[in-house]
């Protein structure tokens, strides 16, 4: 009997990871669609100075109110400024407000949630009443109040939206901490003498990560929408600097002349950016939540 030699295929771990990532993406088309649009907007925001066809704030009176066409794909406004260039530069404002305000909310909210959940007692009570007080304000009203108090500037809009985002992270993190605090591996870490900081950072925080990633993606969508709303109300970046919300507000005075392109460009930009982050967030939630994965919903 001649034995047939079975070839042993040595597979590298990297190949496995790549194929499982591809398999995962194939099963989650929403992640591909959302992720692609998000990446496209990030690219536009990062390279706006190089890819925008015109200077977004340069006034060209001879090019006033040109409808969309080959020279100006999204038309021009009453001052002859190219709408496409303003939309591209506006992406820098919207996405930077989105990322920075979400970072503020994430950092402060997660720290408070971790500390409140782990320490418990009076600290927990005090922090959570503060969070309840923040939640008592309707989100947009609070953002408007903070921005109007601090002054209409992009930095203040970031701070305002960041503060509004804090409660969601704090509650989410605290809930997750309470869920894992009594688990065996935490008790074991405590038994071997790990410090509270080490327990929180090395053992509890990784368990909260998935939920935080999902929350961060969804709250970026909210932050872009909130920034656009603040800009629409004149509480974001000030003219002549481009901002999607402010440009829509400005376009209103030309609606009666049917100069629709001035509002459609920035409006579609806001919609696609918010839609992409919402879509990506929903897909991530489905993918990272083991209960949803099992149910296949």
């Amino acid at each position: 009997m001649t034995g047939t030699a079975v070839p042993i295929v040595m597979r590298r771990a990297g190949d496995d990871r790549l194929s499982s990532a591809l398999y995962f993406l194939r099963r989650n088309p929403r992640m591909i669609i959302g992720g692609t649009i998000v990446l496209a907007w990030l690219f536009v925001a990062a390279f706006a100075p190089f890819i925008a066809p015109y200077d977004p704030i340069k006034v060209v009176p001879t090019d006033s109110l040109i409808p969309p066409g080959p020279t100006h794909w999204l038309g021009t406004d009453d001052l002859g400024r190219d709408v496409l260039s303003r939309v591209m530069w506006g992406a820098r404002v919207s996405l930077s407000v989105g990322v920075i305000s979400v970072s503020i909310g994430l950092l402060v909210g997660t720290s408070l949630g971790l500390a409140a959940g782990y320490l418990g007692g009076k600290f927990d009570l005090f922090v959570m009443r503060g969070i309840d007080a923040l939640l008592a304000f309707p989100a947009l009203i609070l953002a408007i109040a903070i921005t109007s108090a601090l002054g209409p500037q992009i930095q203040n809009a970031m701070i305002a939206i960041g503060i509004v985002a804090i409660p969601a992270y704090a509650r989410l993190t605290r809930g997750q901490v309470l869920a894992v605090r009594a688990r065996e591996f935490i008790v074991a870490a405590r038994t071997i003498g790990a410090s509270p900081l080490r327990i929180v950072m090395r053992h509890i925080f990784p368990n909260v990560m998935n939920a935080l990633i999902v929350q961060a993606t969804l709250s970026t969508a909210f932050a872009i929408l909130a920034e656009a709303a603040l800009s629409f109300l004149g509480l974001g970046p000030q003219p002549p600097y481009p901002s999607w919300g402010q440009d829509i507000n400005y376009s209103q005075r030309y609606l009666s002349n049917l100069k629709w392109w001035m509002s459609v460009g920035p409006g579609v930009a806001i919609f696609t950016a918010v839609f992409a982050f919402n879509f990506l967030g929903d897909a991530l939630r489905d993918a990272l939540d083991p209960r949803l994965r099992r149910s296949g919903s």
Partner: protein
Amino acid sequence: MTTYILRRLVLMIPVAFLVTIGVFALARLSPADPVIVFAGEDRDPVVLAAIRRDLGLDQPVPVQYVAWLSRAMQGDLGRSFQTKQKVSEAIIERLPATFELGLAALGISITFALVIGILSAIKRNSFVDLLSSSITLMGVSFPTFFLGVLLILLFAYVIPGRIFPPGGYVPLTTDVSENLRRLVLPAVTLATASLALNLRQVRSSLLDVFGHDYMRTARAKGLRERTVIVRHALKNALIPVVTLVGIQIGAIIEGAVITETIFFWPGVGRLAVQAIPSNDYPVVQGVVLVSAFSFMLSTLLVDVLYAWIDPRISYDTAAA
């Protein structure tokens, strides 16, 4: 029940206290000196000192807070720097317009959410279900102000005959038909965002209820499908929807801020927006305080209502 309500009220006190501190602190964050804003053109130091004294701004901050709080608790929210009108009066004057807009929007939102939500849950993966998913997805991502602008463009300028005017308000008591004509576009605009949330809630609650044993029992008893859905499924599925709608009623002012601005609707939201450029902080402060408290009260009412309409919730566990 009474114990539960009292317990919720007691729990609300520290939160309400923190909210008042927050609202008071917000006004003090402003870099603009309220005395200069109030004085307008008059920069005479004697006049400025008198105004500072009159406004109580020469007192230590904690004293100012206590004075402000005690006045606010009696309904006195100060006077507008711009118009010198009492802030509480200005808010009360504009509340009917805001409520009219908010309730009309909520009516549209609930009606469409129920009809489309029920149909999409009954006929899963059908055209209606696809429509429902699209509305949900678009509604949460579409900026209200962009929708408002598109509706104005379409109905006031593109379609001949100006079916609906681009903005403005006529009181209901003056001319009912003109009031309703001007209400349509802002109400539809405002309804869209909440429609997405309500629709998702109706559909998912119904799908959840459909999986329960009592639904199978109802069908096994030979009840008509209509009775099964209306009497058994909907009754239970609408409990979370009631919660959501209750919270939306409390957030009417928030929702109306943008819509009122686009459509020149003279409500509370527009009052706050108009006060911002002139640093008229008593007005902004008043609107923020009123909207925060209406939001808190609606949350409380929803909790109580939830415990009352759902017999499975015992007051003890709900309170815990």
